């Protein structure tokens, strides 16, 4: 099985070699998230460093029984990036990505991330069309409830309900797949 050993668990256990390995496994993931959230390369560089230092310092907070490592790292990165954008007084919104690539991450982590993404995509496809559309606008395009309501013509209460129910459904389904959760 690819990527079964958690670098965060090893960091929490005091393994110094896991710290740089965390970068080689998840550097591309965190960088891509930061670029998408912030757009500006300079902001993204600072944010990526913040995210990794947060991950290393709080590695013991990762519980493999609750989520896969790529999902947990994405959650921490999203949290830091959302917070960063709120502090900057900007709306959380995704930015278009350039195609340029330099360097790259390990294949094991790439495959693990793809595997995790495929599971979530399958769950997403189980949602009702309207729920799925709203969730996509909120998660991927980073639109606010108000922006989604304006775009879709749905009442804001319905937008909130779709997001809430959709997230709960996804979490429940993923927990079933992971054999645990709450």
């Amino acid at each position, binding site marked *: 099985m690819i*990527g079964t050993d958690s670098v965060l668990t090893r960091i*929490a*256990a005091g393994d110094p070699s896991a*710290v*740089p390995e965390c*970068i*080689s*496994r998840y*550097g*591309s993931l965190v*960088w*891509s*998230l930061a670029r998408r959230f912030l757009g500006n390369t300079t902001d993204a*560089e600072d944010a*990526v460093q913040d995210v*990794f*230092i947060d991950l290393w310092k709080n*590695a*013991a*907070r*990762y*519980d493999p029984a*609750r*989520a896969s490592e790529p*999902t*947990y790292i*994405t959650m921490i990165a*999203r949290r830091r990036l959302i*917070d960063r*954008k*709120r502090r900057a007084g900007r709306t*959380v919104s995704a930015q278009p*990505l350039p195609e*340029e*690539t*330099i*360097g*790259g*991450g*390990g294949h*094991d*982590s790439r495959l693990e991330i793809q595997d995790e*993404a*495929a599971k*979530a*995509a399958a*769950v*997403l496809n189980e949602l009702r069309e309207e729920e799925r559309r709203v*969730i996509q606008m*909120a*998660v991927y395009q980073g639109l*606010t409830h108000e922006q989604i309501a304006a775009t879709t013509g749905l009442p804001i209460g319905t937008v909130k309900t779709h*997001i*809430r129910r959709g*997230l709960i459904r*996804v*979490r429940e389904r*993923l927990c079933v797949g992971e054999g645990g*959760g*709450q």
Partner: protein
Amino acid sequence: MMSDPRRERLDELLALQAMEGLSSDEVRELDQLLELFPHEDAEALELAAAALHLAMSPPLEALPESVAEKLYAAANRFTPRPTVPATKTTSSSQWLAWSGWVVAALLLIALVSTHWPRPTDSSAPPPSLAELRDQLKLRATEFVGQKNQVVATIVWSDQEQIGYMEVQGLPPLDPQAGTYQLWIVDGERPKGSPPVDGGVFRVNPDGTVLVPIRPPIQVKKAAAFAITRETDPGGVVVSQVKPEDYEVVLTKKS
């Protein structure tokens, strides 16, 4: 249960936290609600949003070399301390509440450290890749290789699972056409095992590059390295390039 307005408000705030973040007032409200529902997983919807984000993301953009260099320098300065495993999570504000004590403790440490003799200047710029490579050279093995105009050297430590590769003479590739990929032959793996992926890389316009090597899986005893030219821009899991077509093979420096 479902009609409990406090329960509904809790779900609403958790969903909002996962998507847009919360104001300080909302964080306080969330904490109060979480006290009423102590078994609620405060991160559950954030994890769901993260999983969905992974599902919707396009192919990952590779980490730029300059950013990687800074991160690895930060990693070198970070010393992990063994800690107890994760337990039930709290909301972000509860974390912030006790992190305030951590910050206070860190400030105290910082205050003490400013009055303590320091062996190094912490304001000094982080070491360059070349400096890190030279430091590692003292406790690692050197590998060298040459083929036509390509000259490559690698400093690698089995013990630390880190290395640095410097190459000259590799022609830059069009990113759409392919990429260079490093492979590590692990002498401890069974015969016939494929080499370990050492990562993909691009070279500077002058055909040179100096990059850190961090394999995703353990290399017990590096016996050789090889560089291939892969047509998939993201690299491959197992190379189909024939050994005679390798760009260069590096063996232990005698």
